[in-house]
C-alpha cells in the first residue's frame, strides 16, 4: 500500500465495510425474484388455489373406514374421516391419516420392473406394461394351471372378487389370504368360531355401545383390534352414560394395553387361561343362580373354580367378585380377543367366552352379541381369511415344487411369518414369482417381476368392512391422477383374462376396472334412479350403505349344552430354559409392520411407553431386578425358534412372568424409514400351526432373556424422572 494506513483509517474502513454488509443484507429481499411453474397437464377438476374433497375408503387395515381427502392443485393434502360413513362417522385413526405417506412415498416403484440381477440383488429394470403383461400372459399360458398360486394379504373386496374368479376360471390353486395383523387379532378364529357355534361364517359384532358391562378377554379394541375406530366410537358412546350408566369395563390380559388402561379394571391373568377364566365366571354365575335361570348348565359341569384360580393366577374371591359384576347390570358382553385362540385348545377357549354371553342370555340382545346380515347379493362380502395352517400347506407345496407360478398381493410373508416357517427356502423352488406391491418390501425383493398396484388413494374399488352393524359397501376412488406408471391389479387381471381367453374372458368380461365396478355395483341402484346418478352418488358419498342398523341374532347352539373341558395350558417348552411367556402385540401405529415405511407413524409414540422408532421389550420391575437389567439395556431375547435383540423398557403394567414386545419393526427392506429399525419378534415364534384351530400359536411363545452388556437409549417422549422403580444404580 502506498498510503500509510493509520489506526483511525483502519477503524473507518472497518465501520464502512460492516455498514455495507448490513445494508446489502437489507436490500437482498427487495430484489428477490419468484418464479411460477405451469402445470404440464392441470388436474381435471378444481382451479388453482381451490381445494376439493373426494370420498374414498381407507385401506390400511381390513376395517374399511370411510375417508374424505382434501386435494388442491392436483395434490392430496389431508385425509379425514368421512362424516357420512356409518362405520366411523368422520373419525379416523393415525394409520388412516398417515396413508398420505403411502401415496408420496419416495421409495415407491414408478414402473413395472423385472429383477434382472436375480432375486435379492435389488437390480431392477423397468418394463413397458405391454411387455410385462405379455411376459406374464406367456407364463400363464405355458404353466400347468394347478401349479399357479395366489397369496393375498390386505385385499379389498372388489379385488378379491376378481382374484377368486380369475383363479377359479384358470383352474388354479385356491387363493390364500393371510396377514400377520389378522393372525394377531384372531380374525380367522373368530369367523370360524362364529361358524361352528352359530352356523354363520361371519364376524360376530359386540355391541359395546349399548353395553353396561364389558369383559374383554385380550381384545385391544381401543388400539388395533379388528375395527378400532368403530369400537372406539362405540366405547365412547357407552361412556357417555345413558341414563347415568357409564359402563364398566374389565380387561383380561397379561399386559396393560391402552384398552386396559382405559378400563375400570385390569385382570392380569396368566397367558393361555382366558378360556378357563371365562368358564369359571360362567360356573359361578350358573351355580349361584346369579344370571336368572340359564337353560344350559351342563356346559360348566367339569369346571372347578379353585383349579382355574390356581392355573390363571386370579384368586377365587376375585373370580367371585368379577362374576357378580358381570351380572350386575342387564347389558353385558364378553369379547374374545386374538390371544384367546392363539394357544392350544383355541376352539374350546373361544367357545368358553361365547358361552358367557349365552349364559347371561345376551345373544342377540342390546349390549350383547350380534351377527351381521348377509348381503344377499353375491360378491359383497369381506374377503375370507386363511389360517396359518393353510399358509403352511402352501409353503409345503412350494417346497415340493408343486407351485410353478406364485402371485403375491398385499402380503409380506418374508417379514410376517416366522423365518423358520420356511417361506424363504420354499420360494427358491418356485420358478417364477410375481409381486403386485407398490414398494419393494422383503417379499417383493425376492420376486422376479413386480407389477406395482396403485396405492389406495390412486385406485378404484369397493370394500366391505370387517365389522359393521349394517350393510356397508365402502367405495374407493382416485383422489389424484396416478403419479407414476403404476397400474391397478384388477386392470392387470382383466387384461390377462382378455388375453388368455376361454373361461377367463367369459367370467371376467370387463375391459377395465371402472366398467367392472359400474356394472357390479349397479345391483344396489334404487329403482327410479339412473345409472349415471347412482354412480355419481356412489362417488360423492363414498359408497353405498343402509341408513338403519341391520343385524341378526345368533341362534343358540346345542354345543352349549355339552360339558366343556379346558385344560390349563402346559408349560410348553422347558420352563427352566425359557422362563418367560412372550406377549406379542401389534403396534398401534405400525400395526403388523405395514406402517413402518411411513415416517409419521414411526414418529408416533406408543401410547403406553411413548417410545417411537425402536423395538423394546417390556419387563416387570421385579423381574428386571432379578435379571440384573435396567431401562435402556440391550438384551437378547431367545426362544427355541430364534433370537432377537431388544431394548429394555421397565414396565409395571405386566405380569412378572411375562415379557411383551410390539410387532412392526425389524424390516430389512420396505423403504428408507422402515429399514434397519428395531427387530422383528415374529422370529421368536415356533412355526408349527395349532392342530385345533390352525392358528399360529403366538400367545404360547416362551423366551429367555440374556443381558448383552450394551445399552442404547430408547427414543421416548416421557421422562423417567421421579419414577421410583427406575431408580437403580446411576448409569
Amino acid at each position, binding site marked *: 500500500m502506498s498510503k500509510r494506513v493509520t489506526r483511525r483509517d*483502519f477503524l473507518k474502513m472497518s465501520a464502512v*465495510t460492516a455498514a455495507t454488509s448490513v445494508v*446489502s443484507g437489507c436490500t437482498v429481499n427487495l430484489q428477490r425474484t419468484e*418464479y*411460477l411453474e405451469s402445470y404440464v397437464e392441470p388436474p381435471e377438476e378444481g382451479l388453482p*388455489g381451490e381445494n376439493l374433497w373426494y370420498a374414498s375408503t381407507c385401506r390400511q387395515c381390513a376395517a374399511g373406514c370411510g375417508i374424505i381427502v382434501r386435494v388442491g392443485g392436483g395434490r392430496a393434502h389431508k385425509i379425514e374421516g368421512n362424516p357420512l360413513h356409518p362405520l366411523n362417522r368422520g373419525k379416523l385413526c393415525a394409520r388412516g391419516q398417515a396413508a398420505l405417506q403411502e401415496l408420496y412415498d419416495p421409495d415407491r416403484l414408478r414402473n413395472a420392473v423385472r429383477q434382472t440381477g436375480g432375486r435379492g440383488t435389488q437390480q431392477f429394470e423397468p418394463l413397458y406394461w405391454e411387455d410385462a403383461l405379455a411376459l406374464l400372459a406367456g407364463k400363464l399360458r405355458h404353466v400347468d394351471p394347478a401349479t399357479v398360486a395366489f397369496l393375498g394379504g390386505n385385499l379389498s373386496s372388489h379385488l378379491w372378487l376378481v382374484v377368486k374368479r380369475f383363479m377359479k376360471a384358470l383352474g388354479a390353486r385356491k387363493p390364500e389370504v393371510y396377514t400377520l395383523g389378522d393372525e394377531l387379532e384372531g380374525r380367522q378364529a373368530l369367523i370360524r368360531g362364529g361358524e361352528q357355534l352359530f352356523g354363520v361364517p361371519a364376524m360376530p359384532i359386540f355391541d359395546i355401545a349399548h353395553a353396561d358391562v364389558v369383559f374383554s378377554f385380550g381384545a385391544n379394541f381401543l388400539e388395533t383390534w379388528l375395527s378400532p375406530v368403530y369400537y372406539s366410537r362405540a366405547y365412547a358412546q357407552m361412556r357417555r352414560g345413558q341414563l347415568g350408566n357409564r359402563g364398566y369395563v374389565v380387561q383380561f390380559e397379561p399386559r396393560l394395553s391402552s384398552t386396559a388402561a382405559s378400563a375400570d379394571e385390569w385382570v392380569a391373568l396368566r397367558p393361555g387361561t382366558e378360556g378357563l377364566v371365562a368358564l369359571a365366571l360362567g360356573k359361578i354365575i350358573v351355580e349361584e343362580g346369579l344370571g336368572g335361570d340359564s337353560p344350559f348348565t351342563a356346559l360348566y359341569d367339569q369346571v372347578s373354580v379353585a383349579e382355574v384360580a390356581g392355573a390363571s393366577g386370579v384368586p377365587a374371591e376375585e373370580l367371585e367378585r368379577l362374576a357378580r359384576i358381570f351380572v350386575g347390570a342387564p347389558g353385558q358382553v364378553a369379547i374374545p380377543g386374538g390371544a384367546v385362540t392363539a394357544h392350544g385348545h383355541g376352539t374350546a377357549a373361544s367357545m368358553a367366552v361365547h358361552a358367557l354371553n349365552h349364559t347371561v342370555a345376551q345373544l342377540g340382545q342390546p349390549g350383547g352379541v350380534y351377527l351381521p346380515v348377509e348381503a344377499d347379493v353375491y360378491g359383497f362380502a369381506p374377503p375370507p381369511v386363511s389360517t396359518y395352517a393353510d399358509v403352511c400347506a402352501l409353503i409345503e407345496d412350494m417346497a415340493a415344487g408343486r407351485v410353478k407360478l406364485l402371485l403375491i398381493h398385499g402380503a409380506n410373508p418374508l417379514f410376517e411369518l416366522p423365518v423358520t416357517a420356511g417361506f424363504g427356502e420354499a420360494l427358491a423352488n418356485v420358478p417364477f414369482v410375481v409381486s403386485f406391491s407398490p414398494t419393494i418390501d422383503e417379499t417383493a425383493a425376492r420376486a422376479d417381476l413386480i407389477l406395482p398396484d396403485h396405492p389406495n388413494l390412486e385406485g378404484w374399488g369397493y370394500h366391505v368392512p370387517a365389522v359393521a352393524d349394517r350393510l356397508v359397501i365402502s367405495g374407493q376412488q382416485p383422489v389424484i391422477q396416478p403419479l407414476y406408471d403404476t397400474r391397478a391389479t384388477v386392470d392387470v387381471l382383466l387384461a390377462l383374462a382378455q388375453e388368455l381367453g376361454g373361461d377367463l374372458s367369459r367370467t371376467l368380461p370387463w375391459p377395465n376396472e371402472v366398467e367392472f365396478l359400474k356394472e357390479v355395483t349397479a345391483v344396489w341402484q334404487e329403482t327410479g334412479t339412473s345409472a349415471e346418478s347412482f354412480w355419481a352418488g356412489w362417488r360423492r358419498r363414498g359408497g353405498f350403505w343402509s341408513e338403519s342398523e341391520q343385524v341378526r341374532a345368533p341362534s343358540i347352539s346345542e354345543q352349549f349344552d355339552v360339558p366343556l373341558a379346558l385344560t390349563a395350558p402346559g408349560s410348553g417348552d422347558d420352563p427352566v430354559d425359557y422362563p418367560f411367556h412372550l406377549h406379542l402385540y401389534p403396534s398401534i401405529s405400525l400395526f403388523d409392520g405395514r406402517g413402518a415405511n411411513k415416517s409419521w407413524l414411526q414418529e408416533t409414540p406408543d401410547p403406553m411407553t411413548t417410545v417411537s422408532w425402536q423395538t423394546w421389550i417390556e419387563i416387570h420391575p421385579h423381574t428386571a431386578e432379578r435379571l440384573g437389567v435396567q431401562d435402556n439395556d440391550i438384551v437378547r431375547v431367545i426362544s427355541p425358534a430364534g433370537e432377537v435383540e431388544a431394548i429394555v423398557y421397565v414396565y409395571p403394567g405386566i405380569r412378572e412372568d411375562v415379557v411383551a414386545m410390539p410387532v412392526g419393526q425389524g424390516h430389512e427392506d420396505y423403504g428408507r424409514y422402515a429399514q434397519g429399525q428395531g427387530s422383528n419378534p415374529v422370529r421368536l415364534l415356533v412355526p408349527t400351526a395349532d392342530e385345533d384351530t390352525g392358528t399360529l400359536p403366538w400367545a404360547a411363545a416362551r423366551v429367555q432373556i440374556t443381558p448383552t452388556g450394551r445399552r442404547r437409549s430408547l427414543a421416548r417422549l416421557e421422562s423417567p424422572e421421579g419414577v421410583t422403580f427406575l431408580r437403580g444404580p446411576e448409569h
Partner: protein
Amino acid sequence: MIHPQPIQRRGLRLTFGAALLVFLLMIIALVLIQQDGATAAEDLPSGEAFPYNHQKHVAAGVECVFCHPGALNGAVAGVPSVQKCVGCHQNIQVTSTEGQANVDLLMHYWDASRPLQWEKTYDQPDFVYFVHRPHIAAGVNCENCHGDVGQMTVVRLAYRINMGFCLQCHRRQAPDKVDRLVSCATCHH
C-alpha cells in the same frame, strides 16, 4: 494532542490489508449470491423465462380469462398450463419465423412433459391475501391494475402495486362499502 501514529511495520500493514481485502471480497460475494434468486429455482433455461408475447395473442382475440380463468373463479389467477397453450398451437399456424421458433420451444416442453417457467411480475408479500374474484365482480378491468397488457410484448410492471395503490381505489368506493374495504382484516386476515 498526540497525532495518531501510522502503522509503521510493513508486516502488520500487509496482514491488515490482506484481511480487509478478503473481508471485502466476502461481502461482495455474499451480496452477489443473494441477488441471484435464480439459484433457488430448478430447470431454468439459461436464466430466462419463456418468451411469451401478450400483444400478439390479444391482437388475435384471446381474452384474459381464457388463459387465466382462476381470476374469475378461483383464489389465484395462475398461469396457463402447457396443455392450454398446446391446445391451440398444435393446430394453428404462426406467421413469423421467430414465432415459429417459440412454438417449437413450446412443443419441446410438451413432448418432454416439462413445466414452463414464468417470472412472477405481479407478486404480493405473503401477508397479503388478494383474491381476484370480488374485483372482477365489481367491474374492475384487468388493465386497471395490470396496465395495457394487450400492448406489451414482454410483461412489465405497469404500476407498483403496494398498499397505497390498493387503497387509492378502495377509498373511492361507495360509502357503505368503504369501511370494509379499508379495514385491515379484509386483506390481512
